[in-house]
């Protein structure tokens, strides 16, 4: 007797056409498949164990650095978040031209304090809030402008129209804020003064405001024309001077 699969068409007990017909015609690919044999039992080789062991040691080292496990209190590993590289100083932010630096400060204060009434375009609304764009008081003498901001305004404005009462804005205002706003308004909304109201000028303005005869009340057009129709004292600053954008102190060129 021959081996089962050696010469099946010579084996008389099998009708080749019938027995293989279906499989060969319809399922040739399935018929030639091999069976999946039982699983091998080779042991895990030594070098595989050693390689896995080395990797586990590395992983253990990483876990050892993982701080207190399941501690939600610590956010950074000491020294993981970068400190300045050795030998290099933290030089801080890059210097900016004076006008840009003051205007950047001023635009923030403007959106916090002035935006609500005078609008983001500085044009007011024509009935209760006057325009800052192109009008003489913001663009005129700086002391008059500073007094209005610090103390508020009642009565008519330059064109004789009474819009409403402007509340004082000076409470808690630093020289930096005042200088920023004034510089910003004088060079925005189409205003083109382009000058910088320095910190010194703003300090002087706050002192002048505190020394007013009727300190605590809003200014009026009469008082402004009488006492404050001049520029603030202080040295003028070239708008192109390079300043530190945070402290507004003069900076060296990079």
């Amino acid at each position: 007797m021959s081996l089962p699969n050696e010469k099946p068409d010579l084996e008389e007990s099998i009708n080749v056409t019938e027995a293989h017909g279906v499989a060969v015609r319809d399922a040739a690919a399935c018929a030639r498949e091999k069976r999946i044999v039982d699983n091998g039992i080779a042991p895990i080789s030594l070098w595989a164990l050693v390689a896995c062991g080395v990797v586990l040691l590395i992983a253990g080292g990483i876990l050892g650095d993982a701080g207190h496990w399941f501690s939600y209190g610590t956010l950074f590993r000491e020294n993981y978040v970068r400190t300045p590289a050795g030998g290099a100083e933290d030089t801080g932010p890059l210097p900016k031209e004076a006008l840009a630096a003051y205007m950047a400060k001023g635009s923030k204060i403007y959106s916090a304090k002035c935006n609500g009434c005078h609008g983001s375009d500085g044009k007011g609304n024509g009935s209760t809030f006057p325009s800052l764009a192109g009008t003489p008081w913001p663009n005129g003498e700086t002391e008059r402008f500073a007094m209005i901001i610090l103390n508020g305004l009642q009565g008519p404005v330059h064109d004789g129209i009474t819009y409403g009462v402007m509340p004082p804005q000076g409470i808690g205002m630093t020289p930096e804020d005042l200088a920023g706003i004034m510089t910003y308004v004088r060079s925005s909304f189409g205003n083109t003064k382009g000058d910088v109201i320095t910190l010194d000028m703003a300090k002087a303005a706050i002192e002048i405001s505190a020394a007013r005869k009727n300190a605590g009340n809003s200014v009026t057009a009469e008082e402004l024309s009488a006492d404050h129709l001049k520029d603030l004292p202080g040295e003028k600053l070239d708008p192109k001077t390079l300043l530190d954008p945070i402290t507004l102190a003069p900076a060296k060129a990079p």
Partner: protein
Amino acid sequence: MSSAISTTTEQDALLRAGIDRSLRHPVMFFLTSGAAWLAVSIVLGIISSAKAHAPGFLSCCSWLTYGRVFPAHINAFIYGWGFQAAFAVIIWMMARLSRKECTAAGLILVAGHVWNLGVFLGLVGILSGSSTGMPWMEFPAFAWPVLLASYFAIVIWSFIQFRVRPEGHVYISQWYLLAAIVWFPWIFITANTLLHCLPGHPVMAAGINAWYKSALTFLFFTPVALGTAYYLAPKITGQPVYSYSLAKLGFWSLAVIAPWAGMQKLAGAPIPYFLPYVGAAATVMLFVPTISAAINLLRTAISSPEILASSPSLRFTLAGIGGLILLACSAVVLNLPDSTLPLTQFSLSGYGFEILALYGFFSFVMFGAVYFIVPRVTRREWLSRRLIKIHFLFSVYGIMAVALFAIFGGFEQGIGQEDWQQPWQNAASRAYPYAVGTTIAWCFILFSNIFFFIHLALMWLRLGRRSQHPTLFDAAHGHASSPHGEEGDIDNAGPGYISAH
């Protein structure tokens, strides 16, 4: 006696043929539409990779900007190709291993169309600018319930087949497939509910997102590919799986380690710092499950060198195992928090690692499965071994180039990024040559996949060869004159005799 043996073998063959017939339409639908999405994804990949070194390329309209094309590329790859290839393999292999015909082919087919519609609308959403901005989850929020529902409608039948299987041994592939079937809904529901429905702190959301990417790779694509490789290698060679203990070690270490991995992407971010470190350690430890499976499959496959030389399925599977070994090593090398992690965290390396996992490992094993499954479900043989050869060579060289360029280019880029006193331009110019290389390599892969898609589409149309002879690489099995053997020649050697491919 010989007649009894012959009858059992033949009954087996007929049972297998019945199972294949019951699954023909869903399997071919998933494979063909998957291959089409793969081609789409590669085209998008070429565009986005080109933008990394030539920012002006196709900058004309907003829907071709990098921020949309890159997510479209990776999502088309994952949800268009990766999942559909996995579906085809899961439903076919689980039916075969549980020896049950599929009774819900129509429903699976409908759910498959819904899945494709979800992917299509999701991609339109990304390209029209409604991406969510979460890596691998960029589809607008409407997409995920659609995908989840169709996922259940597709794989629940495989789960049932496993439950009602004939008594007996549960084969290694079934462990992996069953695990993947159960793990995917867990990670998908967790990530999507935590990010879309119950949004918490945005930094932690980035952490969850990084975990999702890692979990999807190692808890879905990896087990599906390993299950497939554990089926193909012993099936084609006819040799037993090399070591059962190694298989168990590989499976359980994957199950225990992989869920912890992923958050190393956020090292240095303001989340509790044990999280990234545990993630890094777990990713390093993934070496254990991946290398165990790789050794086991490699030893099984190389036990019969002559079949290895001739079988396209085994060749692709083995290339995938090669990718797995590279993946195991790069998991260790890329994730050391004190040296390499800062360099790879925000650079091309992460992309290289993902492509190595999704293409160099997963997709190659899937191609191996495609070359094995399609002749069985269509009952036609592959048309041309030359087309298969083109697909193999261009894919292997292409993907190795993409992965290595991206990983090493990422190191260079990372070194440039770490030197923070230099302008950012430095990091970009360090990565430049590698980015150019990546684009060229993707072009090779596109070339190979166009041939793959055409070949597969012809098989889908039942235009394959009607023959009993498998399409093999070498002509050393007796038909040296013709690559296909003599057409119409009836193979009388009987079932289970000539080499199976």
